[in-house]
């Protein structure tokens, strides 16, 4: 079949550039919502300006006189009005059925939007809001002897129960050059795909103790890790958390910490690119917390420009 090549008559209404500007404005607005507020406002202004121009253009086109011989709406089936109606008046009249049609469609669209938007928001937004947790009390600092590893299992959010049980490997490094206490606190979440990393080495389960804090119970087990390794896909890390084998893409995540009333508290977790040095003298390349499997540095790091927690 021959492709349809049109009827060699000018478009009615003629093609306009305004929708393009409108689309650019909307795109700018959407990107701006994520990246920066001024860009979003600029996008909204562009969209409104071009939207108004577009609407004006479209309405002006609707008032343009209709060519004689063509039906009122350019449809072949609709005959031109008979002679008794003044031709100019007929051309200027906005057909009522078309008006009602557009009004019904427009109102329906508005109603659908009003109903759908909150539902979509409810479906998506709760996953991204109210995600802060207050931190975890790990009990008195005496529980962490100098230069020895302790495996701490605790409830990240006691209200959630056992499902929020997490594990961290804690080592007290003594005081550093600045006379402040130094702790190495490594999250056991594998930075390959999130499996539970284990300490490779003896566990002194007989010396394990259960500590009761204000929030919940936690368990502290002395361990002697030669390294850390993951059972799922064979990722392995040294005792500073640097990757030594397998698929992980960076060093293990760590927790910030604070000491309040002589008790060690776990604070936010963060990601680490690489660790130079050991213990209190270690130099970290620290990044905001990223999901497992996401590069923090190098070219691949560019694949993850924004994290959900950046928007909070």
């Amino acid at each position: 079949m021959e492709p349809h090549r049109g009827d060699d008559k000018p478009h009615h209404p003629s093609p306009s550039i305004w929708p393009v500007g409108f689309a650019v404005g909307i795109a700018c607005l959407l990107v701006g919502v994520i990246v920066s507020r001024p860009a979003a406002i600029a996008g909204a202004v562009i969209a409104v300006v071009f939207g108004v121009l577009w609407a004006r253009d479209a309405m002006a086109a609707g008032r343009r006189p209709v060519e004689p011989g063509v039906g009122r709406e350019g449809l072949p089936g609709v005959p031109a009005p008979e002679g008794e109606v003044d031709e100019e008046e007929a051309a200027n009249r906005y057909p009522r059925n078309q008006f009602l049609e557009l009004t019904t469609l427009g109102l329906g669209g508005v109603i659908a939007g009003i109903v759908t938007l909150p539902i979509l928001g409810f479906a998506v937004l709760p996953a991204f809001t109210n995600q802060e947790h207050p931190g975890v009390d790990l009990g008195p600092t005496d529980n962490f002897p100098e230069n020895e590893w302790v495996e701490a299992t605790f409830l990240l959010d006691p209200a959630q129960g056992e499902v929020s049980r997490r594990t961290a490997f804690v080592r007290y490094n003594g005081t550093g050059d600045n006379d402040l206490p130094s702790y190495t606190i490594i999250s056991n979440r594998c930075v390959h795909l999130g499996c539970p990393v284990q300490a490779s080495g003896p566990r002194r389960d007989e010396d394990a103790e259960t500590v009761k804090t204000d929030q919940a119970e936690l368990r502290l087990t002395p361990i002697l890790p030669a390294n850390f390794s993951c059972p799922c896909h064979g990722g392995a890390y040294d005792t500073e958390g640097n990757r030594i084998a397998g698929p992980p893409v960076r060093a293990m995540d760590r927790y910030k910490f604070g000491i309040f009333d002589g008790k060690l508290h776990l604070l936010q977790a963060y990601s680490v690119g690489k660790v130079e040095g050991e213990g209190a003298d270690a130099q970290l390349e620290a990044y905001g917390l990223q999901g497992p499997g996401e590069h923090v540095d190098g070219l691949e790091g560019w694949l993850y420009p924004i994290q959900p927690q950046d928007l909070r």
Partner: protein
Amino acid sequence: MLETPPRPAPVPPPSRKKNRLTDKVIALVWIPLEWLEERSGLVGGVRYFLFRKVPSDTNWFHTLGSATLTAFLVQAGTGVILAMFYRPTPDEAYESIRNITDEVTLGWLVRGMHRWGASVFIILMFFHMARVFLFGAYKYPRELNWIIGILLLVFGMLEGFTGYLLPWDQTAYWATVVGINLNGTGPVMGPFLAQFLRGGDEITGETLTRFYAIHMLLLPGAIAALIGLHLYLVVRLGVSSPPWSPEAAGHDRREVEPRGPGLVRPTARGRIAR
């Protein structure tokens, strides 16, 4: 005055007693169907749907699609019953699955059908897809049906992914951790997708209820709707011939026959006639 034409003489009733009984039984079946047909046209619709012309050299490979449909219906049926006993909370999910398997009468069977049927469904989808691909049945005018089929495949796999978490045991939990984190490594939007799937920063009870709702409400509805479209296109376009067939592929559209109010009517010999 015009003479009314003489009515045709009534067909003499069949003489044998056995035949009269058969006629009665057939009439008993057809009277309600005629009633339904006159008011809804459903009987004719079902006939149109089921009794179509197909190429004479179709073979067993052409049954893979309806086998897949059957597998989906089994999943839907067993899933509804399992939902009556399953409790999607982190403290109760595992226990309720254990209860279904060990305590509820025939629970082991229905859960087993759902669990193994899931694999059957996925495998049959791939077999069906392979048949369509190797027979070239995705070609004009059936491209759209291939696209709908791909959507069905994706939704079917998502059913597998979301359903795998529900037993809430160690395998389920860690498989879901890995699965979500795999999604999280997607460029730019990956972390957001993972966050959405988890329902937050961490896997919690909300992840479980979320997967449960997606698994038993959202995806089955979408799959059922897409199957409807898929079948509509199959009926509209007809069944394709195998590649070695001398017959042209597709539905041989008949001339429109005049139809009376009763489309189907039993004859004396019990055969269905138009």
